[in-house]
């Protein structure tokens, strides 16, 4: 945490709403992305995000500077979204720890046709991004935290409260779901099986 950010957090914790506005500006985009991945609904995500930022401001005096502010904030966002999912009756699958997937240890098969040239195209990238939006929230949220927000396993565990095995498993499944969708969508670009 930089000295500048530390100072802004201290002022915000003392009730300076202008300082807090700086933090909202800085963290809202990533927090909004996480909320969207979890809730899949723009209006719900906006409501959850506003609620989360208000809660975070109230809880700010208790924020321990040892943790990263972003991790602490995303945990609040995650919990608010989980509460919203609970109202929809969808929370259980989000918070339930899972065993490692059976397919995680499986060797890479040799008979899948891989999309060769398509991987470089803008259409491929666009398809991947659309697929994340369609993916189940419990997988896309973890994938987004890991790849887009560059959080470590430990930070994701802190945000979600899930054990490391579940975090790894969901990350694995998210990538496999993307892979399967891509193989289905781009068969025409595949170059055939190479042993």
């Amino acid at each position, binding site marked *: 945490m930089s000295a500048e950010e530390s100072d802004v957090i201290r002022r915000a914790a003392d*009730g300076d709403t202008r300082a807090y506005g700086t933090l909202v500006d800085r963290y*809202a985009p990533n927090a909004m992305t996480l*909320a969207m991945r979890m809730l899949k609904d723009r209006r719900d995500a906006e409501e959850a995000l506003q609620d989360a930022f208000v809660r975070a401001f109230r809880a700010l005096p208790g924020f321990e500077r040892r943790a990263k502010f972003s991790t602490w904030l995303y945990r609040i966002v995650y919990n608010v979204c989980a509460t919203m999912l609970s109202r929809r009756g969808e929370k259980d699958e989000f918070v339930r720890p899972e065993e490692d997937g059976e397919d995680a*240890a499986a060797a890479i098969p040799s008979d899948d046709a891989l999309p060769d040239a398509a991987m470089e195209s803008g259409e491929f*990238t666009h398809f991947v991004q659309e697929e994340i939006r369609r993916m189940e929230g419990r997988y896309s949220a973890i994938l987004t935290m890991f790849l887009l927000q560059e959080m470590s396993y430990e930070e994701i565990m802190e945000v979600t409260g899930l054990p490391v095995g579940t975090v790894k498993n969901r990350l694995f499944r998210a990538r496999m779901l993307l892979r399967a969708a891509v193989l289905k969508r781009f068969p025409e670009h595949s170059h055939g099986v190479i042993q």
Partner: protein
Amino acid sequence: MSDLSYQELMDYCDGRTTPSRTREIEAMIAASYRLQQELRLLRSLDHGVRKDIPSPVPARFTQRVVSALQPSRQELFLYRIARSSSALFAMAMVLAVIGLAVGPDPVTGHPDRSLFSSAVSSFRTVYDGAAERVSGWTTMSLPSVSRSIHLPSGSSLIIGLAVFFLFILLDEMMGKRYHRQTFKR
């Protein structure tokens, strides 16, 4: 085809394999075009996720959050009423205690049965002396407290105290709520 699992390929891609295992995996990848393609696909997928644009934040979102942090007018109004009321009751109770202390006994009518008669008498003497001097120096005429304030009975004091503590409680609750709203430590 190989002993490499998807999980290991992902761990390798994420830089989470041990140095010795990394060397082994690199040797396997170098020997297999298929693994090279799988790795390339995995990296392309990750690249697609990393290139994703964060979801747009609603317009004027920061202002909305900051506005939501301000205490509502209604709560502020109720809080002020509670504070004013409790202050008024506090004053009334002080007057009531003085009245009970210095006033005539409601039963016997005896003027000298005060609870704090000596202290109140001293106060009355000092106040009346000061008031007389101020009145002498200026044209302002200050009231004398030589005439005691009268309370009809002690029961009104008990009722008054009960109402007073009720308002103290209300004030405390509203005050806490107000401070939570304004986020002062």
